[in-house]
């Protein structure tokens, strides 16, 4: 056993501990990129409504790799690495746009919307001199393709041939939650926010799956009953523990034996303009909030009427980018759109709720970065992995780390 191996030995307590080196180790991070992001996983990359017309493209990422999603001539979505097949220059610098062909400015290699190399200048030389060798075949030099899956208006991509079909990948339980939001109603893009946080990417996913913290950290969620420990709630997970849905029903701002125990509950707090929380029920069933974590890079947010994808792009062990795409449905009336835009105040880089989360993950990173000697304790609710019918539990963290260890061989 080398020093490094010893350093990366999971604590004896197992999945009820999260050793701090998983947030800081550079070698482990490289392994995560290979095994997770570039391995047999579906990375969320875009919404279909971002590229509605032929030739529309969007720049996104699979792991750290820049990728392009392009609506092809046949109307299907194609995905490629955003990298010219010639010398590796980034093909596209714009986040979105429309094109009939894609041309790298360096030597003008030109591709069609399917990623096929159409041609390049000087291929037969100039005045009989130079040019590509006679056996150079355009068909061998297309853009590197990705496998792409579209379901209910959301686009996922993978670099690995072995990634199972999307539906199998999510499993029936999580697929049902997914379909609740992405059930086929055409989507309407409302806008973007992007932020870079100084924390390990896993801390963001943990933050969503850490159901306990919401009742303690967030005065807004707690006071206005958007997500609170005394409300009917559940934690549902895929068999491997890697995808999860955290579900709850809105409660009232009422001082009870339970809310009285919660320090961040403020019975006296009233909004001067309550339109912010003028929520309406729009999905079947009793749940008013479902926060999904879809392995490895998507947080799908349905909090009341604010819907968003939060796409994670890892940037080394101690940073990640969080790309928020807020959306509604194409058939929303004006009032519903206004409601979604107003409730968007809760979320994003300036969100009344999510400011706290962005700050706290940075704070955890600052704490764990000081050494490899410690481990987080994830024992709330016991030491098991079973779905729970309440939120006073770390079960979604234990299940996450059980799945993570298996993938990573830890």
């Amino acid at each position, binding site marked *: 056993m080398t020093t490094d191996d010893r350093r990366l030995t999971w604590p004896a307590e197992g999945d009820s501990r999260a050793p701090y080196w998983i947030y800081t180790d550079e070698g482990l991070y490289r392994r995560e990129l290979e095994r997770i992001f570039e391995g047999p996983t579906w990375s969320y990359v875009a919404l279909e409504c971002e590229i509605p017309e032929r030739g529309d493209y969007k720049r996104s990422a699979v792991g750290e790799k820049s990728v392009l999603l392009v609506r092809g001539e046949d109307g299907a979505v194609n995905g490629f690495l955003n990298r010219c097949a010639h010398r590796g220059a980034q093909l596209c610098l714009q986040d979105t746009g429309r094109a009939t062909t894609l041309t790298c400015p360096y030597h003008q290699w030109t591709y069609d919307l399917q990623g096929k190399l159409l041609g390049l200048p000087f291929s037969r030389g100039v005045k009989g001199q130079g040019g590509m060798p006679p056996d150079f075949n355009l068909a061998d030099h297309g853009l590197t393709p990705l496998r792409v899956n579209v379901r209910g208006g959301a686009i996922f991509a993978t670099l690995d041939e072995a990634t199972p079909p999307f539906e199998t990948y999510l499993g029936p339980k999580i697929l049902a939650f997914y379909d609740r939001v992405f059930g086929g109603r055409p989507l309407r893009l409302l806008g973007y926010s992007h*932020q870079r946080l100084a924390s390990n990417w896993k801390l963001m996913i943990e933050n969503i799956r850490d159901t306990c913290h919401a009742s303690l950290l967030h005065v807004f969620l707690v006071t206005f009953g958007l997500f609170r420990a005394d409300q009917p709630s559940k934690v549902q997970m895929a068999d491997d523990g890697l995808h999860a849905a955290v579900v709850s029903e809105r409660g009232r701002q009422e001082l009870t034996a339970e809310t009285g125990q919660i320090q961040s509950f403020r019975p006296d707090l009233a909004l001067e303009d309550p339109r*912010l929380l003028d929520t309406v029920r729009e999905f079947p069933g009793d749940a008013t909030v479902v926060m999904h974590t879809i392995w490895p890079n998507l947080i799908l947010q349905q909090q009341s009427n604010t819907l968003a994808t939060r796409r994670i792009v890892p940037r080394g062990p101690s940073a990640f980018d969080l790309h928020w795409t807020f959306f509604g449905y194409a058939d929303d009336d004006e009032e519903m759109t206004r409601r979604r835009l107003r409730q*968007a105040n809760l979320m994003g880089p300036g969100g009344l709720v999510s400011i706290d989360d962005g700050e706290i993950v*940075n704070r955890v990173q600052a704490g764990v970065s000081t050494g490899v000697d410690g481990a987080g304790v994830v024992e709330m609710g016991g030491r098991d992995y079973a779905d729970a019918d309440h939120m006073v539990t770390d079960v979604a963290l234990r299940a996450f780390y059980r799945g993570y260890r298996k993938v990573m061989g830890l």
Partner: protein
Amino acid sequence: MSRVAVSRDELEELYAEYGDVIDGGTLERWPDLFVEPCRYRIVSKENYDRGLPLSLMLCESLGMLRDRALASRKLNVYAPRTWRHSITQIRGLVDGEGISAQANFAIFETLQDQPTQILCTGRYLDKLAWSPAGLRFREKTCVYDSTLIPGSIVFPL
């Protein structure tokens, strides 16, 4: 008849006051710089240019401004920081619509144990009105340039 003219000094004074209220830690006075009905929004240049309606912050009344100010001052949890606004290139325009003004802003953010960073730069696109208390904002749109915000935006821009 209400006054529509505005001098450069009056404009300068309003923007200086605006930056001071936020940077000086007196956010409770921030709503006082608006008149009802009012609208305040922070929007990325990306959304603004593409006509996408999402705001990073949106306040549609004095009440919402006060709610946001209260949240920033007392409810949100964030690391201590100092902000410094630099507001330049202020230009006013008076026409049939009333008074409008534009200005550039840069906000420097200082956190513990870190060098001061530029949080964001951008442009204010504002509509102003005279109230008995002085020149005030009727509409304030903060269009920020950043494609990636370092951390979070914990106060109004």
